[in-house]
């Protein structure tokens, strides 16, 4: 036994117990940990946002532009939106301020402007990314080729068979998600094959993840028993 003398270790221990107490039931200790977690987390996000976004991205270019304008007068350069010193950073700031119009009765609709800009850009970006990063490689990996049967190219009868199984599974799963028809006849068979693959696959994923989750708990117990109590090494 070699109890820790580091204040922060003790803080960590108390908080660990606060959260673990939830396993018994909701109680004041858990509520304390939970509210502290939310409070401090938000403070961290706020500090980070101010020091990593607001000041360097918005405030500094604007302040520098004011400085340059003060010494050399206003020039066109100060209206280049990507220059290190420019006045135009005020525009995103103004757009951001539109969020607050929701408190002004007749202008509430303007909240939709920043929302629309955000949604538009990012939803647009997602689509090609999915085709490039998911559909193309996944479809390509699913196509069965002669190579998987060819021992000279690292294939074989078994690997060929498995590739065919994967293909069947993908087709079945796609059939399961076919919404336009009732699952009857051949579609029913396809969908049944699909759901078999889904269930077997998901069961396996669950079983596979147990080890990683138990490792997390082991990590916490190592903290308690080694860093705090000093009873294991």
């Amino acid at each position, binding site marked *: 036994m070699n109890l820790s003398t580091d204040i922060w270790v003790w803080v960590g221990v108390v908080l660990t117990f606060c*959260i673990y107490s*939830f396993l018994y*039931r*909701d109680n004041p200790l*858990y*509520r304390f*940990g*939970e509210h502290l*977690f*939310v409070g401090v*987390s*938000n403070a*961290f*996000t706020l500090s980070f946002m101010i020091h990593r976004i607001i000041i360097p991205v918005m405030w500094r270019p604007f302040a520098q532009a004011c400085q340059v304008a003060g010494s050399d007068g206003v020039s066109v350069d100060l209206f280049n939106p990507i220059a290190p010193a420019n006045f135009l950073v005020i525009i995103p700031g103004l757009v951001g301020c539109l*969020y607050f119009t*929701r408190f002004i009765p007749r202008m509430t609709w303007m*909240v*939709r402007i*920043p*929302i629309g800009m*955000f*949604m538009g850009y*990012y*939803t647009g*970006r*997602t*689509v*090609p990314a999915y*085709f*490039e990063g998911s*559909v*193309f*490689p996944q*479809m*390509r990996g*699913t*196509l*069965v*080729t*002669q190579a998987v*049967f060819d021992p000279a190219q690292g294939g074989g009868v078994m690997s060929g068979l498995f590739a065919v199984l994967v*293909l069947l599974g*993908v*087709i079945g799963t*796609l*059939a399961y*998600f*076919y*919404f*336009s*028809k*009732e*699952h009857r006849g051949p579609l029913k068979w396809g969908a049944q094959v699909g759901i078999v693959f*889904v269930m077997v696959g*998901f*069961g396996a*994923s*669950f079983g596979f*993840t147990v080890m990683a989750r138990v490792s997390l708990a082991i990590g916490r117990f190592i903290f308690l028993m080694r860093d705090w109590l000093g009873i294991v090494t």
Partner: protein
Amino acid sequence: MKRLGVLLVATLLSLGALPVGAQEGGGAFQNRTNLPPPTEVTAKDTPFDGGSNITVTWQPAEGAIGYRIERAPEGGDFEAVEAVGADETSFEDGDVQNGVPYRYRVMALGEAGEESGSGVIFGVVSRPQWFNGDLFGVAIAVLLFASVVVWYIQRARRGEELFIRRIAGLEAVDEAVGRATEMGKSVLYIPGTGQISEMGTVASLNILGEIAKKTAEYGTPINVPNRDPVVYTVAREVVKGAYTAAGRPDAFQPDSVHFVVQNALAYAAAVNGIMVREKPATNFLMGPFHAESLILAETGASTGAIQIAGTDQVPQLPFFIVACDYTLMGEELYAASAYLSREPLMLGALKGEDAGKLVFLLFLVVGTLLSVLFGIDAGWILSTG
């Protein structure tokens, strides 16, 4: 060869992207030893990129232990850019200026320190391109599938009846909201733990709109805690709009949609708190979730709430299936708002998705047959450079 064809078409389409051709020219560099020089040396503007990049290729020289790539500006002296190992046959020089002509040569390096230089390639100019031809296939696919969906939307617009089969998880929505009403308890709606940049979040907000209409009609309180501040602003508008659409704008509680915290685990801690303290009768967990999915779903299950979950994050689906009463898997999450609203145009889009699935299916079957029976590799269509 086929791949080359596609590249050619893509190159032609990307106007102004024609690479500046260059040919081997000039006399071969003085060859003092037996070491042969690298042959078939080319230096060209790297295609489909943002410029400032020239690709040099060569054929190996026998006996070389490495190669040195040298570059000179017009009228200047040659300088070494990079040395590479013997198994390399190409190099991308990313340290050039656009629009400036350069000369290149490749030196084979021998074991005893001898060198043997290739002929000089003149006038290589790097230019930025407007279109990334490597993604030509992706662009075509996006356009193709988009037109399929749009065509079905048009059909719906003409008033065609569109049939959609039952989806169990969505059939249960009415019952789930009704149960909360009977019990006099609230409905908890978690719009995922993702950002607005994730489409799953957008899909979830669309479902939120439909569910909020139901809670407005039934007069059941709804509670929407948010993890992302931008999502929070949208969710608030969505719920407010749904209450107005349902004719109950007065029943909208501004506090019902609220921001909690960005840290996903802190968010899970806080939502756990809501679940065990307010004991909502129904929990909806819709949208992108990460590791916190089971923390939320399992706590919800322990309170006896009826839980309907849905996510497009495939790794989290097993946990929802295990811990929730109904789970919308992947695409069902996207189909949900159309299904719940029964709006013809939205159903049309859903039909378009189904047609897309048929295209996928057909491609897989035909591609496999071509490949297995005739040895034609259908996968080249799907390469992305």
